[in-house]
């Protein structure tokens, strides 16, 4: 196990090993998202309270899950990079940040759109939406900090520290925003909290969540492999690879 992880830490080995994972991951992502999307849109029953606007859950919740998971993954990669000086971890962190920001944006957008039929306004300072908005700013901060450094190494380390600081703060922010919201808006119902969903409602959701995770891993792997080639372009193994590929 450790030997395998150790091998994965080297860009060359990583590039060779992950080549076989790409196609299955992309196929799984496309299949799961298509199946979950069609099921959720056309076959799942409408909610008795919210009607068909309830179907937004099938994109809103996976996007929100991914938005939070990617930030945690980014901080974990930052920790690995800072502690063990594994450059691959930083490459992965750099490549997943824009996707995380995009997912946060989609979660915000779908939440706001969902708010119109449910609350009657485009924006409600709901605890979840507010936390999501703050998460979006945290993503922007990490991406901007990395870009602001002239040296790649400096930007990588600074972004790692900020991601770790952010991940420590996310639970505190979530807790305080929840507390703030209950203080100001008592007894308003939250859109995603549903007591006991029937299986035909939550199964498509499960498919979508799994599909989104597969998509995230597939994108991060593909992009990290490109980044490896870019950064190691003068190494002998990359040259050999290019010669072979001709």
């Amino acid at each position, binding site marked *: 196990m450790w030997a395998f992880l150790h091998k994965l830490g080297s860009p060359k080995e990583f590039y060779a090993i992950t080549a076989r994972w790409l196609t299955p991951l992309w196929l799984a992502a496309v299949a799961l998202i298509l199946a979950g999307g069609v099921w959720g849109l056309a076959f799942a029953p409408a909610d008795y309270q919210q009607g068909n606007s309830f179907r937004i859950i099938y994109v809103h919740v996976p996007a929100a899950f991914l938005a939070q998971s990617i930030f945690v993954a980014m901080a974990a990669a930052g920790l690995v990079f800072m502690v063990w000086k594994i450059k691959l971890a930083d490459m992965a962190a750099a490549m997943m940040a824009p996707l995380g920001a995009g997912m946060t944006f989609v979660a915000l957008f779908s939440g706001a759109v969902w708010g119109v039929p449910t609350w009657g306004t485009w924006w409600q300072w709901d605890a979840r939406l507010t936390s999501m908005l703050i998460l979006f*700013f945290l993503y*922007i*901060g990490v991406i901007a900090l990395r870009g602001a450094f002239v040296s790649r190494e400096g930007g990588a380390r600074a972004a790692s520290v900020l991601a770790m600081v952010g991940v420590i703060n996310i639970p505190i922010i979530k807790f305080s925003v929840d507390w703030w919201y209950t203080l100001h808006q008592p007894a308003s119902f939250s859109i995603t909290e549903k007591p006991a969903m029937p299986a035909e409602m939550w199964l498509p959701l499960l498919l979508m969540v799994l599909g989104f995770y597969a998509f995230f891993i597939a994108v991060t792997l593909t992009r990290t492999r490109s980044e490896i080639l870019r950064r190691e372009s003068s190494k002998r193994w990359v040259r050999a690879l290019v010669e072979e590929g001709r």
Partner: protein
Amino acid sequence: MSRADSRSTPLPEAGEPADGLAVAWRATLHRDLVLRLRRPGEVLNPLAFFALVITLFPIGISPEAPLLATIAPGLLWVAALLAALLSLDGVFRDDAEDGSLEQLLLSPQPLPVLALAKVAAHWLLTGLPLALMAPLLGVMLSLPAGSYGVLALSLALGSASLSLIGAIGAALTVGVARGGVLLSLLVLPLYIPVLIFGAGAVQSAILGGGVTAHLAILGALLAASLIFAPFAIAAALRISLNG
């Protein structure tokens, strides 16, 4: 008057590590306080900014006392937070430019402790004055009676956390040219819990509720940032100076 007289703090003697740390801490704090007080403009600017921002709101919204009284706690807190943010960029920048920050990094004393001394100096000359000034501006916003003490106390407690968290951002951006806007982008999202409980304390005092819970949470936030922030600041300083 010889040069020996003008040096008030003696240099730490070698061979006394525990005592040496205390001396280094005090010397760093003392140096930062003296340097800042020599340029009183920089100490007074955040206070003037605070007063100015507070002046803008009655002009921009409405001079009616009942309306102002309802939004006063949040306004005072947000304005104080922005004023503290404004001065944050200078915590490490001057020292980085004249090279004394590198001396700090090379010192045998643990960097987190020395960084904490610099943050303490920043808080003493921005957070604390802002907290003391806030009740005065509260009068101008017709803040209801009975909440003035809580306002000052919550600001004093909260701004210490703000200085600590903000110093992480300041340390991360010392190496970046014109890092001011970037600094606020990094730091403001992290300020939100402090703002919620700080403004909440004042709000609660106005409504006649208990404020101990809010102040306790502010204290807990301060304790947590006291534990974690110095290490993050030290790591960030090393990154910024060594690339």
